[in-house]
């Protein structure tokens, strides 16, 4: 056996220890499962073996199923209907092995010494008993839902039978992991013991237990699943509400979440062996569905890659920013300083006067009242650039004006010539700003998103002359902040702002066409976008959009307003004085008490047309325009790879997670169908939907952005 060791102790108890060679964590894959199955059968067959303890030699227990292996199953070279059956049969073999530990006639105790997720926890759930070490950092959970899958190793059925269906559902759907203490409360584990005693206590229990103790409740006669029963009046209301809330939150965009709900509902009505088959069938269907593959690829595989940051120049040694400078204590500057302080990086914040500099303290106190005091010693507000001396990295976050920024850059260079200088600009090309630097190779863009405290993505922009040292430090810095960076090349608005602006712009264009605002907003959410387009405009602030539009026109020397969308924004801001959420009124009204409501006056500015489009068309317009722009960015070399485009979209503005990202979306629709749709939309709605030459080429050849499932490194 290569992946685990099997020893029988003096008392006749087998100790099965997972320890896969060449890996930092144990995973379940074809080999380790087969060996576990052998080990289980040996325990059950050999007369002198009384039972088994299952544990791990690594710091963690088992991290889950090897996604590499699972994805390969899903893409196996078989006719489509057979692929799903192949997955079904493979997973059923695992289910059967687990079931043997549950009802094979001898006790199996999972001695959980560390993290157990997904299939790793499911292995434990099937064991006779689960004891866990008393380390509060241990994570126990079934996170499959987070990557477009469902727990296919008995997790949905055993959670349901342990805690009741409506208690199990939130854990399954959120994919949330819990600590040992919470796991004990939920009865996911039976006991918490000091980690040194884990195996000995497991052995002891086996030796002292009797066959009565080994039978799970659901293997006893007359067993009833605890909690709500949908066949009763009260239970039916509770289940109906759970269904409605699921629909409310996910709009039917996540087949895996619907499948989890169905697995719990169908499974609870039947004996467990039947239930496990139902669960496995649903898992197999998902594995061969586009949504699951898209989500696994973007939210797991490519996100991990992005976090490993393969774009970092290999020859530059890793560095940590020991002192950060931030110029500007506005909304962005203050928030950047805040997250740096949270990462224990000392920050100097420079502003034109003391009061402005003090805004950073105010900001931190406002958004982080509990943690502020601990952070403030790391923050030094200043009015003199000299305070920056010794900084490794200085980020300017001043007003979006090239001249002002150029001035700042020169001052920073003078104060700390050794520092890497970065700009948080969202629109001005880095190469342009770099002209103010005497050493442009030390100048780079580091673009944060608002609210900085919550947004995971940071866009790093290479100017034409940005050097490797600057790039490496920027990447290292973002990693210090525990955020994820994508590296993009220079261009107006770079990648993220450029693409998601098409979403808000399309919303405005549709208003001007006379499409009902309620329809536009609902379509945005139903398409899977986290915020509806007009609501998003209000969040960003209509006057900011207005300024950006005007600046853009000025920079490019074009007419303003240049489109009905720009006309609408100008009308809202300049004529109606509606600036967005911050002023209590934008496309929505924001009453002090109560929910926001679409502004009734919008119909006077943009009269509704008599015939309204169907919601599917509106959804498609909103997603298609973004996907097109992302494709353009790839073709122009703004983003280097489809993975960057998709991860950036997912993290940067929450682009419909169920699609896996804008380019995954095009793959899902199919290049040919997508191009046909673009041509149809061009004719009906405008030139902006014109497909790119590359896309037209892909439509002809049947090309894809992702030719086959990517090879992931880690487990689910």
């Amino acid at each position: 056996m290569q992946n685990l060791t099997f020893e029988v102790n003096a008392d006749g108890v087998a100790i099965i220890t997972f320890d896969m060679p060449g890996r930092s964590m144990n995973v379940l894959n074809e080999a380790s499962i087969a060996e576990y199955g052998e080990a289980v059968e040996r325990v059950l067959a050999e007369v002198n073996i009384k039972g088994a303890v299952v544990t791990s030699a690594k710091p963690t227990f088992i991290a889950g199923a090897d996604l590499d292996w699972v994805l390969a199953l899903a893409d196996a070279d078989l006719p489509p209907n057979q692929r799903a059956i192949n997955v079904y049969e493979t997973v059923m073999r695992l289910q059967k092995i687990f079931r043997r530990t549950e009802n094979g006639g001898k006790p199996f105790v999972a001695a959980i010494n560390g993290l157990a997720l997904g299939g790793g926890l499911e292995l434990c759930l099937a064991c006779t008993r689960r004891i866990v070490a008393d380390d509060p950092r241990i994570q126990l959970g079934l996170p499959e839902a987070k990557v477009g899958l469902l727990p296919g190793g008995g997790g949905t059925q055993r959670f349901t039978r342990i805690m009741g269906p409506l208690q199990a559902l939130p854990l399954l759907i959120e994919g949330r992991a819990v600590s040992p203490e919470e796991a004990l409360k939920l009865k996911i584990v039976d006991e918490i013991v000091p980690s040194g005693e884990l195996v000995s206590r497991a052995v002891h229990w086996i030796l002292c237990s009797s066959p009565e103790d080994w039978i799970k409740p659901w293997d006893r006669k007359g067993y009833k699943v605890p909690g709500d029963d949908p066949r009763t009046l009260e239970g039916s209301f509770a289940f109906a509400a759970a269904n409605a809330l699921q629909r409310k939150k996910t709009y039917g965009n996540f087949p895996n979440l619907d499948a989890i709900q169905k697995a719990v509902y169908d499974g609870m009505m039947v004996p467990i062996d039947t239930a496990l088959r139902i669960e496995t069938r649903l898992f197999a269907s998902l594995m061969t569905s586009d949504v699951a593959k898209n989500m696994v690829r973007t939210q797991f595989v490519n996100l991990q890659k992005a976090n490993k940051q393969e774009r970092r120049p290999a020859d530059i040694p890793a560095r940590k920013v020991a002192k950060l400078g931030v110029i500007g204590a506005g909304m962005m500057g203050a928030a950047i300083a805040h997250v740096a302080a949270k990462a224990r990086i000392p920050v100097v914040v420079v502003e034109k006067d003391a009061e402005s500099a003090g805004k950073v303290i105010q900001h931190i106190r406002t958004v982080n009242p509990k943690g502020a005091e601990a952070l403030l010693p790391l923050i030094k507000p200043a009015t003199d650039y000299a305070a920056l001396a010794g900084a490794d990295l200085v980020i300017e976050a001043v007003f979006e004006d090239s001249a002002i920024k150029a001035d700042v850059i020169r001052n920073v260079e003078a104060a700390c010539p050794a520092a890497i200088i970065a700009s948080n600009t969202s629109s001005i090309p880095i190469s342009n700003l770099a002209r103010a630097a005497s050493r442009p190779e030390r100048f780079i863009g580091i673009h944060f998103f608002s609210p900085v405290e919550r947004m995971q993505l940071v866009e790093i922009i290479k100017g034409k002359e940005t050097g490797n040292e600057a790039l490496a430090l920027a990447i290292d810095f973002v990693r210090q902040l525990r955020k994820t960076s994508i590296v993009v090349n220079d261009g107006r608005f770079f990648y993220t702002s450029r693409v998601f602006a098409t979403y808000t712009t399309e919303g405005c264009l549709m208003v001007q066409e006379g499409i009902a605002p309620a329809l536009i907003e609902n379509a945005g959410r139903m398409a899977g976008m986290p915020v509806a387009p007009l609501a998003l405009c209000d969040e960003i602030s209509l006057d900011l959009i207005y300024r950006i539009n005007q600046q853009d026109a000025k920079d490019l020397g074009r007419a303003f307003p240049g489109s009905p969308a720009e006309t609408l924004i100008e009308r809202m801001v300049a004529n109606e004085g509606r600036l967005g959420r911050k002023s209590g009124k934008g496309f929505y009204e924001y009453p002090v008490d109560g929910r926001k409501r679409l502004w009734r006056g919008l119909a006077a500015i943009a009269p509704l047309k008599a015939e309204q489009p169907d919601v599917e068309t509106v959804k498609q317009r909103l997603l298609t325009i973004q996907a097109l722009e992302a494709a353009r960015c790839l073709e122009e070399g703004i983003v280097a790879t489809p993975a960057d485009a998709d991860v950036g979209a997912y993290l940067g503005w929450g682009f419909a997670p169920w699609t896996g990202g804008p380019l995954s979306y095009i793959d899902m629709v199919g290049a040919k169908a997508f191009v046909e749709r673009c041509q149809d939309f061009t004719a009906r709605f405008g030139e902006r939907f014109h497909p790119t030459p590359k896309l037209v080429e892909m439509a002809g050849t049947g090309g894809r952005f992702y030719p086959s499932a990517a090879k992931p490194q880690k487990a689910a």
Partner: protein
Amino acid sequence: MQDCYIYDAVRTPRGRGRPDGALHEVPPLDLAAHVLRALRDRNNLDTSLVDDVVMGCVMPVGEQGSNVGRIAALNADYAETAAGVQINRYCASGLEAVNMAAAQIMARQSEVAIGGGVESMSRVPMGADAGGWFTDPEVAFKTYYTPQGIGADLIATKWGFSRTDVDAYAVQSQQRAARAWEEGRFARSIVPVLDELGQVLLDQDEHMRPQTTMQDLAALKPAFAAMGDAMGYDAVAIQRYPEVETINHVHHGGNSSGIVDGSAAVLLGSKEAGIRMGLKPRARIRAFTSIGSEPSIMLTGPEKVTRKVLARAGMTTADIDLFELNEAFASVVLLFQQLLDIDPEILNVNGGAIAMGHPLGATGAMILGTALDELERADLNTALVTLCVGAGMGTATIIERV
């Protein structure tokens, strides 16, 4: 084919659908038997002539399980040769039962049949039968299931019926019902429920509040707002109707049908059967049908089924003297009125379920009797009876006096 005639129609008064309701102590099988006995006794009916007893019951579980149609007939001491069946087309069951009985007669499968219904909502509450429609996630998602109250509020939102509009309709229902009782307009159909000692348990619809004013109703909180929000149903409805920004919740207990106990039965037969029974026919069944429509908004069926049944009868709304549409929720009636341009003076002239209550499986047969009584009282000819129905259905029947 032969014509089907209505020979008699009876109903119990409606008791409050709560433990303190006057009919709460009457087991459902007794309640159902009560109207069957009344039909027999009032008409000197030889029950061995009855081919089938079709009874609507929407919660056919517990005490209302086991086919109340057949068992109530036995319980009423009908001849054992009278078959019986329980049917469920939700709120229209009582009318559907009449329609099915009529179809049997017209097709010459039966000569005499009874269509009616029973519902003891105080003993077997709404929802008692559970059901996979809303509990099975796959089905709930597919059908965009939302409870009927949300549908009613969605109708009010989409067609612009304000809180004032629906409350005004409710006040009218109360006033018309009160007037009808005062004037004895229901006297021919009502069979008071007595205990075994002959004492009156109930002889009048006890849900009514004749003194209801707009002010009284204005004080009531919308009944479905919390459910719509906290349980997610508003969001589901809006996903089905994405042109709606937010649902305006206007319905409450005072402008929705009352929860009550009651039963009803209608005696139907062919011409020859009438002669054999020694009874004069009161009306002829002219046409009947059911339809399906969008199940999520659920309650828009009446206009569509009315158009269909009129077309089948070769008639238009102008040919109908009286309309009877079950007042499940005020907005349902207001919508029907608007879409078909119906004169409110000939619609629900004696009030409806908002004032008197809606015993689910029985109502359809009750309002048929109400329409028949009113045709006779006012010396009019044709009436159209219809109800909105769960899961988007609608049922309608046209009768004409003979």
